[in-house]
């Protein structure tokens, strides 16, 4: 079984001979450790592919997340201005719209005309032709609710959830179509075998279970079902304390759900058993950034002991990792899974 098969075996709730261990995202870290940055790769798909392939080969990671760190470019493609921040992921200077009516003036196909989106697509094709048989080549975008909050402004989105739920729904529906448009060519050409969805604003730290169920869940289910019909797997990560909606995360249809370091891994394992693969949840800052390799080993072993028995588990950080995480800590993280036995 190669690395890719091991990951998908875990997705199918099986128990590969070794527990897979993977980063979530890792775009900032990949670029920073390669001595490059987000802005300088625009228009250079071959260079973007090279940086990703080299980092992947050096570290031996089983999943590569193309477009990681560039997720706001999907909104910038439609007219919002993106601001580059060196090692940090680029963000938007202003939300794309102030009122839901403005959605009617937007053309989703502008996404396909954007130079940065095209760079990511082209780099993904190169990476897939090079590594796609051995490892999981995925593309990554914001989850619909998160993307909507970025389009509309987070504060405005939060206000609308209660004051103007119809507007909130319209923006989420638009965001779902935008995310779908991003994955579309890569799925149709069978370039990627998985989509990765990062849904930070669906966090239990922001919205209630009811609002998640009404606004975020249906769009996630639609996007994931669409992906499945095109023959690819889905990995979903929701940030923050989602302990009151873990059962709903298991109902999204995602093959694997990656949870935040705030969640009790054992509790999540019980709720996910027989439904979806669980991934998590080593602390990306307190342990991976600020800990020693021995700290990383201890925290990783703790996660494995709680949730790896019986399969259907991938060791993962509890969120994306900062750019300056020491390489030796990532190695310690991978090594712990490699040597772990029940």
């Amino acid at each position, binding site marked *: 079984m190669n690395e890719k098969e091991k990951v998908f075996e875990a997705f199918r709730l099986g128990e590969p001979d070794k527990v897979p261990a993977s980063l979530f995202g890792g775009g900032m870290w990949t670029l920073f450790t390669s001595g490059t940055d987000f802005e300088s790769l625009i228009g250079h798909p071959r260079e973007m592919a090279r940086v990703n392939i080299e980092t992947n080969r050096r570290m031996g990671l089983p999943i590569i997340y193309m477009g990681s760190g560039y997720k706001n470019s999907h909104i910038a493609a439609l007219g919002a201005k993106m601001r580059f921040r060196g090692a*940090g992921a680029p*963000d938007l200077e202003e939300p794309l719209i102030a009122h839901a009516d403005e959605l009617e003036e937007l053309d989703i196909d502008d996404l396909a005309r954007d130079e940065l989106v095209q760079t990511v697509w082209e780099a993904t094709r190169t990476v897939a032709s090079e590594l796609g048989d051995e490892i999981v080549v995925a593309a990554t975008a914001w989850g619909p609710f998160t993307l909507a909050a970025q389009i509309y402004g987070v*504060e405005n989105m*939060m*206000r609308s959830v*209660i004051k103007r739920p119809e507007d909130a729904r319209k923006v989420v529906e638009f965001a779902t179509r935008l995310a779908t448009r991003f994955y579309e060519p890569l799925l149709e050409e069978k370039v990627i075998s998985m989509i990765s969805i990062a849904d930070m604003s669906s966090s239990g730290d*922001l*919205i209630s279970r009811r609002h998640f169920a009404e606004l975020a869940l249906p769009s996630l289910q639609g996007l994931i079902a669409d992906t499945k019909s095109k023959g690819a797997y889905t990995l979903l990560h929701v940030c923050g304390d989602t302990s009151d909606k873990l059962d709903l995360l298991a109902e999204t249809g995602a093959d694997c759900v990656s949870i935040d370091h705030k969640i009790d891994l054992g509790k999540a394992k019980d709720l996910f058993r027989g439904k979806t693969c669980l991934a998590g949840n080593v602390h990306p800052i307190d342990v991976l950034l600020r800990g020693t390799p021995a700290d990383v080993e201890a925290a990783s072993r703790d996660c494995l002991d709680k949730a790896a028995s019986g399969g259907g588990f991938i060791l993962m950080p509890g969120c994306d990792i*900062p*750019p300056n995480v020491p390489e030796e800590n990532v190695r310690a993280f991978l090594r712990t899974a490699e040597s772990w036995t029940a």
Partner: protein
Amino acid sequence: MSEEILRKLKQAIIDGEAEDARELARQGLDQGLDPLVLIDEALTPGINRVGELFTNGDYFIPNLVIAGDAMKEAFRVLEPVLAGDRAQNTILGRVVLGTVEGDVHEIGKTLVGTMLTANGFWVTDIGADKTAAEFVAAVQENQATLVGASALMTTTMLEQRSIIEALQEAGLRDQVKVLVGGSPVSQSWADEIGADGYAEDAMSAVDLALRLIDAPE
């Protein structure tokens, strides 16, 4: 009658009804109620109730945002009629609040500002993506005794340390207490960078600020 207005105004804050809050604040003034009474007996208990509901898990960020909107609308009516001296005398402390350089996340910091304002602090919110130098300038300009620095990204939390260093260099570190917050931030990070305190959410930021101003120099 005044009891009725105070009760309704408090409820308008809890429900996040901005128009009702504005109208009730006006009615209160028309009936001769002291604006400070309207603040102390309706706005503050209202927003603190919202905080309790959040802490208990009944309220989420959308509720906090609309309650904050309602409080601001009422304040806008009351502030111009607060007698200058009297208002100054009731201020517990002057706070400069902002999100650090390179970080555009506004919402958490804004909610902290709302809660501190409602609890008697004078808050100057300098906004998001602000340099250490901008924090220092705002502290000087406002003679602040508290600084709140928010960072929501692992790449920007380092700026909280830069702000503390800049305050030291400007000779202001002894006159201010520095509070840090944001999702990647923790108490151990606050200790490491020499901040005076860490608060997990807007409600605990108020408790922390109250503790810090009572702390012996």
